[in-house]
């Protein structure tokens, strides 16, 4: 007999812990195996039932057919709660939250209906009605939600966008890192200069516009831009002969939820040249005709 399978995804909110406890207690009381790893459940989960508390779309996909419960909240609430947890690593907080938001978007696309964390009780398949405890009255500090603003609507529609400022990116060996944005001396061999921020995006076509200025110091500059997930990316190479402000735009289709990375390279060795990378704007584009997406 196949076990009953429940997937549970919850965004950070003041009620998150209460919901996790309530759902976990109910599942354990019903004899379910509870884990955060679909892989672990596959080999160790019992035959009665399994509850996956998912942290990413990849985990959700690996869990296979299951009844999904998604407890959402407003983007600002999620960002504020996450920032209180990682006050000194906001970029990491955005990254963790983007994983959850992208998973939520993917589940919405699969037809899952959302519940709100402010609700007092939920009806779960196999487990029945579950009531959460009241969370302590705490208001997390206000954090900037704009880097994840493309998730303002839980499932980003065409036109959804976000600005990713330079401080979300990693500057490789940038001199004068104390400056904002850091000055990049292009002198040296061909190498990656800037990369990041590895925020998860849901399936679809996404456009990134990199914003930067260069001082050519009288020589030609050869820069390469890559936009995508890991080794699956769109690449563009540019030759710049004049100092000034530039934008480079790249489109790439996400077949499944994946961590978006924009990489800027010195395409070859340079003797002269300087660069300031200011950040990037990301926009959801309409899918191209015939573009396939991973359905499972």
């Amino acid at each position, binding site marked *: 007999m196949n076990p009953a399978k429940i997937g549970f995804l919850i965004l950070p909110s003041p009620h998150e812990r209460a919901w996790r406890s309530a759902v976990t207690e109910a599942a354990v009381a019903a004899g379910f195996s509870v884990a955060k790893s679909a892989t672990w459940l596959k080999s160790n989960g019992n035959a009665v039932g399994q509850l996956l508390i998912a942290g990413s779309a990849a985990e959700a996909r690996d869990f296979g057919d299951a009844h999904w419960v998604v407890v959402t909240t407003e983007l600002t609430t999620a960002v504020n709660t996450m920032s209180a947890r990682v006050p000194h690593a906001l970029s990491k907080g955005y990254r963790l939250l983007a994983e959850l938001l992208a998973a939520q978007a993917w589940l919405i696309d699969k037809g899952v209906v959302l519940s709100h964390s402010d609700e007092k009780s939920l009806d779960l398949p196999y487990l029945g009605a579950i009531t959460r405890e009241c969370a302590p009255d705490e208001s997390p500090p206000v954090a900037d939600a704009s880097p994840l603003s493309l998730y303002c609507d839980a499932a980003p529609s065409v036109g959804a966008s976000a600005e990713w400022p330079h401080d979300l990116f990693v500057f490789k060996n940038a001199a004068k890192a104390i400056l904002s944005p850091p000055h990049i001396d292009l*002198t040296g*061999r*061909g190498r990656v200069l800037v990369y990041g921020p590895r925020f998860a995006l849901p399936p679809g076509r996404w456009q990134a516009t990199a914003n930067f200025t260069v001082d050519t110091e009288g*020589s030609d500059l050869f820069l390469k831009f890559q936009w995508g997930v890991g080794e699956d990316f769109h690449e563009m190479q540019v030759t710049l002969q004049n100092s000034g402000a530039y934008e480079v735009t790249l489109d790439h289709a996400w077949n499944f939820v994946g961590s978006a990375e924009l990489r800027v390279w010195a395409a*070859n*060795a*340079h*003797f*002269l040249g300087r660069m300031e990378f200011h950040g990037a704007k990301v926009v959801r584009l309409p899918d191209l005709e015939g573009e396939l997406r991973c359905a499972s």
Partner: protein
Amino acid sequence: MWDAPGGIGLEVTGLGKTYKHAPGGRPLFKDLSFTVGRQDRLAVLGRNGQGKSTLIKILGGALGATSGRIDWRMTNSWPIGFAGGFQGSLSGRDNIRFLSRLYKRDFDEMLRRVDDFAELGSKLALPVKHYSSGMRARLAFGLSLTIEFECYLIDELVAVGDARFQRKCREELFEHRADRAFIMASHDMRLIEKHCERVLIIESGRVKMFHDVREAIDIYSWLRAA
């Protein structure tokens, strides 16, 4: 922070050179500052006409700088590969005699060692102005080895002569005098990669120092190809 091997033997500060008739009065290079350790091995790279030989000549005192200061704290050779230090109407032998007095060395010993290295034989009796550039370079290199400088200034000398002579130059310089400093302008990337610890690149009037020799060679190779 870079530590000069064996302590600082040369300090160059704000060095610049502009030739009088350069188009637009454009400096060949400017604001060049660096130090060389007593056991340092510095390569100078640059495309033709960028100022490598000029820098070596200025360091060797054969050419004046337009600006800046050069503070030698070790004995330095004249630019090897550059025959400007010879009196052309004097024979090779007389040039050796002149330098033996100038540097307070024993003439007979110096003559023997120079001839042993340069293999000029009876040609040493001829005026230097009748020497080929290769012969002049052999004489200059032989003399500089005999005087035993603490720092050798080399401008592509090792490209002179046949393979056997080149091998001899490399052995004398890089093996028998492994404890000396040298500053070497060359287009021979393999030689630089094998023997140098730092690289100075001169390009379009700008000068940059590289501690990663491989990286400097990458940059220079790209400049040459561009």
